[in-house]
């Protein structure tokens, strides 16, 4: 589909997106519903994703506050919890069942709804068309469906919080038989059915989005925008979409089999089970099969979460250091390496399931191999800011924080990826610390860097800087204070997903540090609310942009008007003449040369 054809279906496209020779009678206002709700404009859809994602992030984070209260103060009651949770926290004390429901939903919400839909959905939608020079996605209609499937999925997940038997509570990985048998846990009742349905719709949403992103990047680039002139954000979003398209269907198949086992008497995952006072008729299934299917998505999922952050951090670090990204091709190659290896390491989550030790050995090798492209990226980021002229504004601070957290969380992966060490650390707080730092907080930092950087493009206004700095320091210091001590707890063998440690001789002496972690978590939570307030207030009251290119950046999105209509560029889409990282003297006293500037006589293309 050509760029102009994309907009033809959308009868009421903004006038200025059309060629100058279009007639005035096409100029009419779109109805509110088509412009803002069932919109096919990628920019509006990206806003829908980010706002839905933020609502989920607040819910998910609030859940963590509730269960951190239980972990920090197992012997106290918090009447305020009863107000929120009703009978689940009778007398202000969280019930064990709901504790497990909360950790399950916290994981599901943050991993899928916030860091997959909220992150990829927002930035792939916003940046791909703007940065490759397209009027919209290849299929704006499919793009709209992608959001609305996500919305439906969200509604189902939300509903599952309110059913009598509670939400799914077998952990976000929902391993059968626990998740397959209603007798095994209260959360394995209706809550689990809703969880599965919701996730199935989520997969649909993710595929509709992902296919669109890939096609748009491959087919809709403007004149002169060769693949090697694309910003690294677009490269990262491309591989994110590839990962999703290839691995989500496998997860889907895993869920379908689980739905069958739960409702139609099959035995894919069930074998030789005695529960609820009787032996079940299932024989011959394998509970481990589910784990293979789950982690075949589950591990690429980690990179689905990380890659957009990597791309955005690359872009932000380069722009605000006023230097080209170091090793552009190495960055692309390492993205390719990570993408390929992401499919070959899933079983490192399963070292202690009793799988063949030889197979375990292969997965150790492949897992530690992934450290090489990751290391290349880190060193390239460091070299990018080296001898730069660093502007410490909120996006840059978050990008630096991203690198710091990525290093910290990445290094602990070397412990867990090595099966001989994993055999002790598996499912302890070490794991909790590792993945929260690397794919939780670090990915969030990539997202925050992106939000602060592209907010001016989204809303034509700035976010408040001072609040941004406060937000940065609270989150950065808080994240380390929360998760650093957890490594030690994990090294001491403290298992994750425990409701109370006081009966354990080996773990009860960590009570004091659990209190500390819970208090910091509470403070960090309120710090995030400040970000939310800053975000929404700035949409309406933020300082207005006076120039379309506030950061002095090179990429194409900054050549659009301050508030671009549907179609992005009035008149022709600009032609691209150079790569996006020409941060050098343009001969007129500027330290950047936008991609649309033709090469000067004698100047070599990158």
């Amino acid at each position: 589909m050509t760029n102009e054809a994309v907009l033809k279906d959308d009868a009421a496209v903004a006038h200025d997106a059309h060629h100058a020779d279009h007639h005035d009678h096409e100029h009419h206002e779109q109805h509110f519903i088509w412009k803002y709700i069932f919109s096919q404009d990628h920019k509006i859809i990206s806003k829908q994703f980010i706002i839905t994602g933020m609502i989920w992030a607040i819910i998910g984070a609030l859940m963590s506050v509730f269960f951190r209260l239980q972990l920090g103060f197992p012997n106290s009651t918090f009447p305020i919890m009863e107000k929120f949770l009703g009978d689940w926290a009778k007398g202000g004390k969280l019930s064990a069942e709901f504790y497990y429901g909360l950790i399950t939903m916290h994981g599901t919400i943050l991993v899928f709804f916030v860091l997959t839909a909220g992150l990829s959905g927002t930035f792939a939608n916003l940046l791909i068309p703007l940065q490759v020079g397209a009027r919209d996605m290849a299929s704006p209609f499919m793009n709209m469906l992608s959001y609305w499937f996500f919305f439906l999925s969200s509604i189902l997940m939300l509903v599952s919080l309110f059913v009598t038997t509670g939400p799914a509570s077998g952990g976000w990985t929902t391993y059968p038989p626990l998740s397959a048998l209603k007798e095994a846990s209260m959360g394995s009742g209706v809550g689990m059915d809703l969880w599965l349905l919701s996730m199935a719709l989520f997969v649909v949403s993710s595929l509709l989005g992902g296919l669109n992103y890939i096609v748009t990047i491959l087919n809709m680039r403007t004149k002169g925008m060769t693949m090697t002139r694309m910003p690294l954000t677009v490269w990262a979003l491309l591989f994110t979409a590839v990962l999703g398209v290839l691995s989500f269907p496998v997860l889907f198949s895993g869920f379908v089999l689980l739905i069958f086992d739960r409702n139609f008497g099959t035995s894919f995952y069930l074998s030789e089970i005695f529960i609820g006072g009787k032996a079940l008729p299932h024989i011959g299934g394998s509970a481990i099969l589910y784990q293979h299917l789950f982690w075949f998505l589950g591990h690429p999922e980690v990179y689905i979460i990380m890659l957009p952050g990597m791309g955005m951090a690359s872009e932000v670090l380069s722009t605000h250091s006023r230097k080209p990204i170091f090793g552009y091709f190495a960055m692309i190659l390492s993205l390719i390496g990570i993408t390929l290896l992401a499919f070959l390491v899933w079983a490192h989550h399963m070292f202690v399931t009793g799988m063949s030790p030889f197979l375990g050995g292969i997965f150790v090798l492949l897992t530690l191999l992934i450290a090489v492209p990751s290391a290349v990226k880190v060193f390239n980021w460091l070299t990018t800011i080296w001898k730069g002229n660093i502007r410490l504004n909120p996006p840059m601070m978050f990008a630096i924080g991203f690198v710091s957290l990525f290093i910290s969380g990445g290094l602990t992966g070397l412990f867990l990826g090595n099966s001989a060490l994993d055999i002790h650390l598996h499912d302890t707080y070490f794991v909790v610390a590792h993945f929260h730092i690397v794919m939780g907080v670090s990915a969030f930092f990539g997202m925050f860097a992106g939000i602060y950087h592209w907010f001016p493009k989204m809303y034509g206004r700035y976010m408040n800087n001072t609040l941004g700095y406060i937000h940065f320091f609270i989150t950065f210091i808080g994240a380390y204070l929360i998760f650093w001590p957890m490594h030690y707890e994990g090294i001491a063998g403290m298992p994750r997903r425990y409701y109370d440690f006081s009966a354990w001789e080996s773990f009860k002496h960590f009570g004091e540090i659990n209190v500390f972690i819970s208090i910091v978590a509470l403070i960090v939570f309120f710090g995030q609310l400040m970000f939310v307030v800053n975000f929404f207030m700035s949409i309406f009251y933020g300082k207005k942009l006076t120039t379309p290119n506030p950061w002095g950046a090179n990429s194409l999105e900054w050549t659009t008007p301050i508030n671009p209509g549907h179609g992005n560029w009035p008149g022709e889409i600009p032609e691209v003449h150079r790569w996006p990282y020409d941060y050098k003297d343009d001969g007129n006293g500027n330290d950047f040369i936008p991609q649309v500037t033709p090469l000067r006589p004698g100047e070599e293309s990158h």
Partner: protein
Amino acid sequence: MSGLLSTVLFVLVFVVLYQIGKASDYAATIRGEAESRKQANKALAILMCITFIFGMIGIWACHNYFKDMLLPISASESGREYDKMYSVTIVVTGIVFFITQTLLFWFTYKYQASENRTAFFFAHSNQLEALWTTVPALAMAVLVAIGLKNWFTVTSVAPPNAAVVEVVGKQFNWIIRYPGKDNELGKRDFRKIDDANNVLGMDWTDPHNADDIISQSGELHLIVGKPVKLLIGSRDVIHDVGLSHFRLKMDAVPGITTTMWFTPTITTDSMKRLTHNADFVYEISCDQMCGKGHYSMRGTVIVETETEYNKWMASQKAYYVANATPAAPTEPTKPAVLPTDSTHKAPGITKN
């Protein structure tokens, strides 16, 4: 009342911070954008620097705080190797951590924006990129080599003289079965399980079952210095036998028997002296989410000398003697499709 007060206080702090944010924006406009941006940049570079220094002090403080709270010396042979490998990995990652974090924050401070500086246009360097591809690759090779060596040792076949004990998980406790005098565990079948008198579904037609001893309190007795092989199973959902003091862990999966072997090297009594803790006990923690009682699924390991072990063993009654009635157990009427003579490793054939 206190709830109301803290809410008010919280809202107030919020409003104040928000106003500070707004005010600083106005102040910036009055003072002149460029000037205030310059000042902010300088202040932030210093703040980043301070954050880094306090971070490093924090790491040191955290380390000191935890120093005496971690696990004692490993109580198994393989665990000693584990501890060594752990130290090597912590040194390697520690060096990388300190170098990269220092560079990150130092660059941030040193190259803060200034009118006199022009950024150095440095787009790529093949030598540098080759360097930091190969060095991590070599470091990984070393870690993989040590890891695989240990991994294949830990997962190797148990020595022939190893004692065999069965550990079965159920919601929410551990059942331990010892083979008794004949040193053979009898067959069992999940369809024969009865919580009243046959918790593991032992097949009473198998004579090996007659002397098997079952501990339903999850007490695992082991002889110091003697290898033991655990046969691990589950009755209902996935559990995990976590033995942190021995640096070991293995899932208990329904329908599959997993194994794990090790040699305990320190008795519980010696460990009490070593840790100066009279209450010290080796604990089995369930390390795989298994339902609402997951956090309470606790077992214990008693490592003792052979004499103590034999004495304890002599005081135990065979489960058969205590539970099975002399009259042949009445076979409950099961659907005919289920094979009646299957062991706990039932073949996966059903006709429906």
